[in-house]
């Protein structure tokens, strides 16, 4: 009995076979991927659907599309993208960027999005989280949090980390959870782009404080960084962009190494 309990409680396993998720993130503008992509065998590296399909074939567990379209037509282009992805891709995906109201979320849900990710709009109007959770269920609502250290405190930032808020990161995450967030996507702006590893210390703190899944983001540079983030913080998922786009890390290789470290993963 003790052995069973220990196995179930082991920090290096998803409990009872639930796997740790690997999530490539695609930045999209006007329906096209914008971050450079250096992939073999792609007809069109700018086509988010083709890229998404490629990742799903490699064994990505989930995808995140961040839409940075700034035009008035943005909702229409997002909906078209979501429909195109949902038609072709057989794994779950999240869409984020500029979702401000229930109507945006409703349009994306009906186009086939599994989840939406909300960042600034939730900070500016926290009641939006309650409304979204009530309308669509908590499983649909991912709260993205960009955090940066200021004077030793983790502070929530907006506008891609440029604009500090009054909110301390852990406080805000707990508030988001209590309002109905189904998942937290936590990006450390101090680590993002450094390729020096995830912010395992903060991630562990957050992961221990909440009872909803946490996705680590910011800082992935090597396979070992993924091993570290799962072993040290026990988060549920890890997200990265450029290391996947440039082929620096191939998902099957990454999962093989995670498995060697007894971290539960889904292999395809």
């Amino acid at each position, binding site marked *: 009995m003790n052995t069973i309990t220990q196995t*179930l*409680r082991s920090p290096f396993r*998803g*409990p*009872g*076979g*639930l*796997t740790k*998720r690997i999530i490539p993130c695609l930045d999209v503008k006007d329906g096209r991927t914008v971050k450079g992509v250096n992939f073999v065998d792609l007809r069109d590296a700018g086509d988010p659907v083709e890229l998404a399909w490629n990742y*799903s074939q490699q064994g990505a*567990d*989930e995808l995140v599309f961040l839409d940075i379209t700034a035009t008035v037509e943005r909702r229409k282009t997002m909906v078209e993208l979501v*429909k195109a992805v*949902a*038609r*072709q891709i*057989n*794994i*779950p995906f999240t869409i984020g960027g500029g979702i401000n109201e229930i109507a945006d979320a409703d349009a994306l*849900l*009906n*186009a*086939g999005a*599994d989840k939406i990710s909300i960042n600034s709009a939730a900070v500016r109007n926290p009641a939006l989280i309650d409304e979204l959770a009530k309308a*669509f*269920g*908590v*499983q649909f609502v991912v709260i993205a949090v960009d955090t940066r250290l200021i004077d030793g405190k983790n502070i929530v930032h907006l506008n891609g980390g440029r604009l500090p808020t009054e909110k301390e990161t852990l406080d805000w995450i707990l508030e988001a959870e209590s309002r109905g967030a*189904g*998942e937290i996507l936590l990006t450390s702006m101090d680590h993002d782009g450094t390729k020096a590893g995830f912010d395992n210390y903060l991630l562990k703190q957050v*992961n*221990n404080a*909440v*009872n*909803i*899944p946490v996705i680590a983001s910011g800082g992935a540079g090597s396979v070992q960084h993924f091993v570290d983030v799962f072993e040290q913080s026990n988060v*549920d*998922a890890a997200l990265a962009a450029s290391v996947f786009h440039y082929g620096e890390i191939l998902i099957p290789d990454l999962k093989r190494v995670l498995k060697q470290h007894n971290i539960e993963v*889904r292999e*395809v």
Partner: protein
Amino acid sequence: MIGIITYGAGNIFSLTAALERLGIPYGMINKEQDFEQFDRYIIPGVGHAGAAMNKLEQTGLVPKIKSLTKPVLGICVGMQLLTSYSEEGDSKLLGLFPINTLKFAANPDHKVPHTGWNQVSPEKENALFENIPNGSHFYFVHSYFIEYNIDYTLSSTTYGNKFSASIMRDNFYGVQFHPEKSGAYGETLLKNFSKI
């Protein structure tokens, strides 16, 4: 041809997209006369089980659904509706399976919703899981689960406790995971259902 029972509980775009990719013909069921055109049925559903049950009752299709003798597949909340009762909203459901839908107890080791890919192990041999290896991963996202039952559990998954990943009774089937989001094995399961 599969008839999808539409009652306004959740989005079915991904499900119909998957059926289209697989070349499985389907149509929509909005009223009782529509049932005849199809040889099998899917009850989709996401969100709140109690709210979904209310919507289903409003369609007036409940007596017809209960009397179906052709294969029926409930997906996620659509599966939970087949059970007797859900703790979600303290709701009385269709009662086609005399078992209950219960809430996961949240703790740091077992976060709720149960979100992600978990292993599914067949408890019985069935055509629904043909060509799907024991322990294959399927995509789950749910806060309530159907209790394990030796008579009705077709496959099980463990998350804190062992629960029903799928159930079967006569012509009625249910899956807790989302086959339309579960990669190649999810597609295999949909194909299997189209041939049952």
